[in-house]
């Protein structure tokens, strides 16, 4: 049967107004259901007719999924961001700006202003990979087949993985994910059996765990909110995204770090990268290696070297190794701001 793309197929649209109703609908339709947040990932799949759900559950009418609020017994333990909060709202929120600027910086570098107005924080962390073979409907491992087209002698893999590849070499494209891992965020997931709270880094999975998805959500599950504890509030943050165009581009790589410096030494640190593997990577080895060390260029250089240990380039993505090394170096020891004035 012939294939046609870029025309959305028909589906039944449900627009629940509560999480409970959304869950009921998802339960009712099982694997025929599709969860719709901002639509930026979903509509590509739906327009290409590669995913043809019978029922689409649109979360945009659920008020309890929106907005940024404080949480905890004393109202000062941290913040909770509803999964349907737009990236623009995240960027502009005063508490995020003041205490968790790392997330604001990351969110502001996502795609374009128009996309940030529509895209949500829940969608940004739950989006699928952008591997152009997989997204074009090629029958690869991730799509249930038994080949990776990107990892062949002739495969075009400039934007693919250098770490933790397992049959599939796709990468996670989220900009907010490494920032949330660095901030030690907790993801609130509503399942059939109740609420689960998972560490940000455990929300994401590589192909060795599940080759068909980038996160832990099972059919019927909903990511409802993201909590950021006050652990890293006001810490020293670094975020950098490298992309081809200055707007409307996924990262080639990005890096996020949070540090507490004491007496010139790194007392506490968390650091993560994305675009290097099928899941955003928390770099625990780097954290361990630099903790207690002076925050200086030598420590940065060492951190960069540790970060890329075990990295394996494909034919067209060898640049990601020096790029990751340098980004991690900067995220640890900083970068001199170039003051071109004359």
């Amino acid at each position, binding site marked *: 049967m012939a294939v046609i793309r870029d025309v959305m197929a028909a589906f039944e649209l449900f627009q629940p107004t509560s999480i409970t109703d959304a869950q009921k609908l998802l339960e009712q339709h099982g694997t025929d259901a599709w969860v719709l947040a901002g639509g930026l990932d979903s509509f590509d799949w739906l327009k290409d007719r590669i995913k043809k759900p019978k029922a689409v559950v649109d979360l945009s009418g659920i008020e309890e999924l929106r907005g940024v609020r404080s949480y905890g017994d004393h109202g000062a333990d941290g913040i909770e961001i509803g999964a349907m909060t737009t990236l623009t709202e995240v960027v502009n929120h005063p508490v995020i700006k003041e205490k968790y600027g790392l997330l604001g910086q990351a969110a502001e570098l996502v795609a374009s202003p128009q996309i940030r107005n529509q895209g949500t924080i829940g969608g940004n962390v739950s989006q699928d990979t952008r591997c152009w073979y997989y997204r074009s409907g090629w029958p690869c491992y991730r799509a249930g087949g038994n080949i990776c087209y990107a990892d062949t002698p002739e495969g075009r893999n400039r934007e693919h993985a250098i770490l933790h590849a397992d049959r599939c070499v796709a990468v996670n494209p989220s900009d907010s994910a490494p920032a949330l891992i660095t901030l030690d965020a907790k993801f609130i997931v509503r399942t059939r059996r109740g609420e689960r709270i998972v560490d940000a880094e455990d929300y994401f999975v590589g192909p060795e765990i599940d080759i068909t998805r980038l996160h832990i959500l099972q059919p019927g599950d909903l990511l409802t909110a993201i909590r950021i504890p006050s652990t890293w509030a006001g810490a020293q943050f670094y975020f950098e995204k490298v992309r081809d165009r200055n707007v409307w581009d996924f990262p080639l790589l990005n890096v996020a770090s949070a540090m507490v410096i004491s007496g010139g030494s790194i007392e506490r640190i968390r650091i993560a990268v994305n675009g290097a593997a099928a899941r955003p990577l928390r770099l625990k080895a780097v954290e361990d290696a630099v903790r207690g060390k002076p925050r200086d260029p030598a420590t940065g250089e060492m951190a960069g070297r540790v970060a890329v240990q075990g990295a394996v380039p494909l034919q067209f993505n060898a640049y990601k190794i020096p790029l990751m090394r340098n980004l991690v170096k*900067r995220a640890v020891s900083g970068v001199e701001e170039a003051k071109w004035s004359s």
Partner: protein
Amino acid sequence: MDNKRLDNKKVVETTKAAEREYGVGHKLIGKNYETADLYAKVTGSAKYAEDFRADGMLFCKLLLSPMPHARVKHIDAKAALAMPGVKAILTADDLPAPADTLTDNGTVIKASKWGERGLTMEPVYQGEPILAVAAVDELTAAEAIEKIQIDFEPLPFVVDPLDTLRPGGPNPRTDGNVWTRPPATASQGPGTPAITELKWTESDFAELKKGRLPMGKTPDEWTYGDLDSGFKNAALVLDETFITPDTSHQTLETRSAMAYWRNGKVYIYTGTQSTAQTLPAIARWLNIDPEKVVFISEYTGGGFGSKITGGVTMIIPALLAKKTNAPVMMRISREEETFIGRARPGFQGRMKVGFSKEGRITALDMFVVCDNGPYDAVGDSPSSGRIVSLLYQPQAMRWRGVTVLTNTPPRSAQSSPGGLQGIVIIEPIIAKAARRLGLDQVGIRRINCPEGKAELGPAIQGKRQYATSSFLKEALDRGAEQFKWAERVARTPKRIGTTVRGVGVSLSCYVGGTIGFDGLLVIKPDGRITFQSGIGNLGTESVIDVHRVGAEVLGVPWEKCDVTWGNTAKNLPFTCVSGGSQTTHAMTRAAYATAMDAKKKLQEIAAKKLGGKPEQYEVANERVFRKGGGAGMTLAQAAKHAIELGGIYDGHEAADDLHKLTKASVAAFAGQGLVGAAKDNYPRDGNTYSYVASFAEVEVDIETGKYYIVDFLASADVGTVIHPRALGGQVLGRSTLGIGHAIGQKWVFDPRYGEMLSKRFYHSKPPTILDVPVDMQWSALDIPDPETPVGARGVGEPPVGGGCASVLNALSDALGDEIFQRAPVNADTILTSLEAGRPMQHPLMAHI
């Protein structure tokens, strides 16, 4: 970091374009004004093809080939046609036979058997339309297409031009792999291009192992001057291989089209660059009489060469409309546009250039392989040689080229076709030579720059062609001054922290005008003037701008002028195609001729009514009156007299030398006022070209490979300025188009399967507004071209090559010569080469 850089803080203050005053001594020419279509465009009320509706309108969708080359063995559409709401299917069998072309001088050009027809039973690229289904809505049409079963016989395919030139390499078409043109004969003129087979030898390909472009046999070649002694006498000889990208036109309006038939005529709505000239193209594609075609194209969302006369696919809704006896809308999706929407052919090029110690080019040996795609031969390859020969005036030059077919989407002209590729191949070599010879980058270009009636290309019958004029040296000098070139070059340090700055300059030029077209205006009895514009409304504003010349000549305020455009039923004159930057030159000439014709008629009418001789009258301030005072009449009165007089004055008769299309339009206005209609018969000595000197500064982070263009300036030699704001839009807009080729736009193919991977809009990475400096600058010399009455030349294409090459040259200034040998240049190129200390990307592999 990233965000902060986007502030694009200014470093060196450049002269503001706004400080210049254009059109000195004119009332309208060279002045800014509000075009009649402005509000419709900015408020969204403008109707593009997709916005039109007709009663009972159906929609159609296309079935695209999943394979790069195959034969359709069988189509089973039973299940699709049985669906409720499905009205018809159209296959290649339903297409009219390709029509021969009858040119205006009576020559018949036989239809090519290799030509593109809109639908096919032998797809020659992945994404080629095979059939179309019309249904009550798009969803039904799409579902019907999914029910169609096609049996394909896969055929050999190739996506990299070098792969088909190898001994035993696959052919993209069953008849061969290259376009050749038999040599011209005295009796028959140039031969018709044909597809033949060309294979190079294993020893030719030995060069590839050394990272250099193999140079096997080519079908086309020319030489002038003494190449050998040029190289022998050179102080420096460089031999470089360079690849330029294939870039989709990516017009924001896709080539959607709507059509219906009424009283035996077909009405087609689609975006085009050229309203009047698209009509004969439609007639030829449908193989019907041009009188049976009405073509409507009020607004066009971008063309850049991809819609010179629209696209052949517009006949699909027209034929389905005939089959279903209902209007049919074909909305082309972004993905379909990627396949059928045209692209610039990439070049694999090699140049050996000899320089004297002063930097003068003593000899230039140029070799290009042009990736043509599967259909009609594009002219980029020969054009690249001519442009390089004009722009750098080598003392001796050989050009060799081969236009290779591949199973990749069809190419067409794209802003500066061949010009961009030629400029982008040579400019980095000149930059490198200047560094080797210790010369200033502006200086080495100044010494090679064309001047006056500069020659180009090979000798034809003993004589080389030449330009009408070139003031590029002045544009280069003025640009260098405005950009504060010397100050930037002298600035230290070059590196702060991890960032390095570099500056680049490039010359640029392209064809800037044709001659011999018609104009048509009517002075109405109420004193208003209507200008009939056959130019497409393609976004350049030339559709309206050129008529300012007519109003200026006739001394009529612009508020009393109307311009008619966008519909061939509204009686338009024979007009040039808006391609090759012809329009401003060709149609200001026609507008001038037409206004002069109207002026002569006004003088004659005045003499007839008021006595004396016509030359004793002058035309100004909406009147025709005796020179030095005395009797006169208003234009309104003259228009009434024209109607009384009839004949040539009110359109009952037309001048013999007008084109038949213009004559028919003149006749349609008979009796409605004073009709001015004339052909541009003004002489021209030389061929018209326009020129730009482009300047760029970049800031590169050597730890990430990321770079920003921090400043850009284009200094243009484009003749008399007609409309500064539109001109500035073109100079900077087309510079940006060129910059896209430097900073990321390209195609990526999987060569094993012959499929395009970069098919999403965001994959092909056209430049965004945030990829260029906030404060890009332009200026124009405003020196009239001496070979045209108004002095104006075209501007669309000349800035493109310079946009790209100035950025590339700024990058090599910052990073050295061992980074890139292809465009675009991105973080991957920069980082891997910096790590290795030499260019690390494959030197010749296409589409990576």
